[in-house]
C-alpha cells in the first residue's frame, strides 16, 4: 500500500501547484507574452524556417526558465525545505521534483509547439515524428538541467536573475541540437537523419541526471 516516496513527492508538487499556481501562472503569462511578441515582430515578413525553428526554442527556453526556477525557491522561502529534509532522503526529493518538472515542461512545450504551428503560417513541419521526438527529448533535457540549477539557486541570494544566466551555457548544446533537429523536421528529413541529434539529446539528459543525483545531496543538505 506504500507507494514509492519519489512518487509521493511528485504528487505533493502537483497538488501544491493546483492550490498555489506558483509555476503555472508564471509559465502561462510568459508563453502568451513571448508568442505575441514573436507574432508582432514577424509581421508580414517571410522569415527563413531556420530562424523560425530557433525562435521556437527561444520561446520554450525562456518560458521554462520562468516557471521551473520556482520549484526549490518556494520551499526555501516558506521554510519547508527543512520539513522535506526531515521526512525523506535527498535522492527521493530530487527524483520527485525532477519528475514534476518533466511533466510541467512537457505540457508547456507541447502547448507552445501547437500554438506556434497554429499562429505562424510559414512554420510548416513536414516530419511530425522528428518534431515531436525533439520536443519530448528536449523537454526532458531542459527539466534535468533546470531541476539541479533551481536547487543551487534556491540557496543563493539573487534567486530570480541568476537562473537564466547560469542555465544558458549549460543548456546551449541542448538548445543548438534541438534547433538543428527542428530544422530537419521542417525540411521533411527521414527519421534516421535526425538520429544523431536524438543520441546527443538522450546523452545530455542521462549525463545531467546522473550528475544531478550526486551533486544534489550536497546542495540539498545544509
Amino acid at each position, binding site marked *: 500500500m*506504500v507507494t514509492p516516496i519519489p512518487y509521493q513527492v511528485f504528487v505533493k508538487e502537483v*497538488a501544491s501547484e493546483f492550490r*498555489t499556481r506558483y509555476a503555472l501562472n508564471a509559465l502561462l503569462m510568459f508563453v502568451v507574452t513571448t508568442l505575441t511578441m514573436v507574432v508582432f515582430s514577424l509581421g508580414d515578413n517571410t522569415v527563413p524556417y531556420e530562424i523560425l525553428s530557433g525562435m521556437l526554442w527561444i520561446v520554450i527556453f525562456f518560458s521554462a526558465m520562468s516557471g521551473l526556477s520556482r520549484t526549490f525557491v518556494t520551499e526555501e522561502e516558506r*521554510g519547508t525545505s527543512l520539513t522535506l529534509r526531515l521526512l*525523506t*532522503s*535527498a535522492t527521493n526529493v530530487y527524483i520527485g521534483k525532477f519528475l514534476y518538472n518533466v511533466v510541467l515542461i512537457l505540457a508547456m512545450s507541447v502547448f507552445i509547439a501547437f500554438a506556434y504551428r497554429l499562429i505562424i503560417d510559414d512554420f510548416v513541419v513536414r516530419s511530425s515524428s522528428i518534431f515531436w521526438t525533439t520536443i519530448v527529448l528536449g523537454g526532458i533535457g531542459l527539466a534535468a538541467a533546470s531541476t539541479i540549477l533551481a536547487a543551487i539557486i534556491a540557496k543563493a541570494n539573487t534567486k530570480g536573475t541568476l537562473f537564466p544566466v547560469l542555465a544558458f551555457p549549460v543548456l546551449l548544446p541542448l538548445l543548438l541540437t534541438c534547433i538543428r533537429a527542428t530544422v530537419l523536421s521542417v525540411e521533411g528529413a527521414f527519421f534516421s537523419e535526425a538520429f544523431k541529434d536524438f543520441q546527443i539529446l538522450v546523452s545530455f539528459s542521462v549525463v545531467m541526471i546522473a550528475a544531478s543525483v550526486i551533486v544534489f545531496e550536497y546542495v540539498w*543538505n545544509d
Partner: protein
Amino acid sequence: MTPFHLEVRNVRKSFGRKVLFDAVSFDVRLGESFAVTGKNGSGKSTLMKIICGVLTPNGGSVRYVVNDKEIPLSHVAPHIGLVSPYLNMYEEFTGEENLRLFAKIRGIGVRQDDIHGLLQRFGIFEHRNKEARFYSSGMKQRLKYCAALLHRPALLFLDEPTANLDDIGIAVVREVMREQRQRAALVFATNESEDLSFADRVLDLSRLKIG
C-alpha cells in the same frame, strides 16, 4: 518497543568563524529523556537539527542504532519525530492533508482513525479541513505535534516544546512528554526550568562553550 541507541560523538558546529560548540557527546537509549538547555543563541536549535540529520555538522558523528543495526541518517525519518520552530507545514494544504502528506513522504501508512484521534487529542479536529495558512501560531504548533507523533517514533525531538501554546496545549504536551519517555525516548531543548523535571540528564550548552 525495539531497542535502539542514539549516539552523538564530538559534534562540532560553527557558522563562519563563530564556533557554537565543539565537542558535544551524549547517548540516548530506550526509556530515557535527555534535555538541552543554554541561553538564547547558545546553539540548542542547531544541535537539534544536527541530531535529526537535517543539518550537517562540521565534525563528529551522529549514529542511530536500531535492533543492533546502524541506520544511515538519510533513512531515519520513520524512526524520529521533530517539533521545532524551524519546521514549517505546507500552508496551502489543510491540517489533515499535511498529516497525510507527512506520513506518505516518510514512507509509512497511517489509518484515518489515528489521524483523527491525534487531531482530537490536540484540540484541532474541528479545524482539520482548514488550510494551514489560516491556523494561529498555537494551532500550528499543535499540528506539528500531530505530525511528529503520527508514526509513533522511537525518538521524539522537541525544540521549545511549549512555544505558542495555551494552558490546555501545555497540559497535553506534558502528557505527551511523559508518555514518550516511558514508551520510547525523548530529547528536548528548552529554557523553561519547569521542563527540566522531565529529563533524566541535562546538557547545558552555555557552560560547555569553548573559545
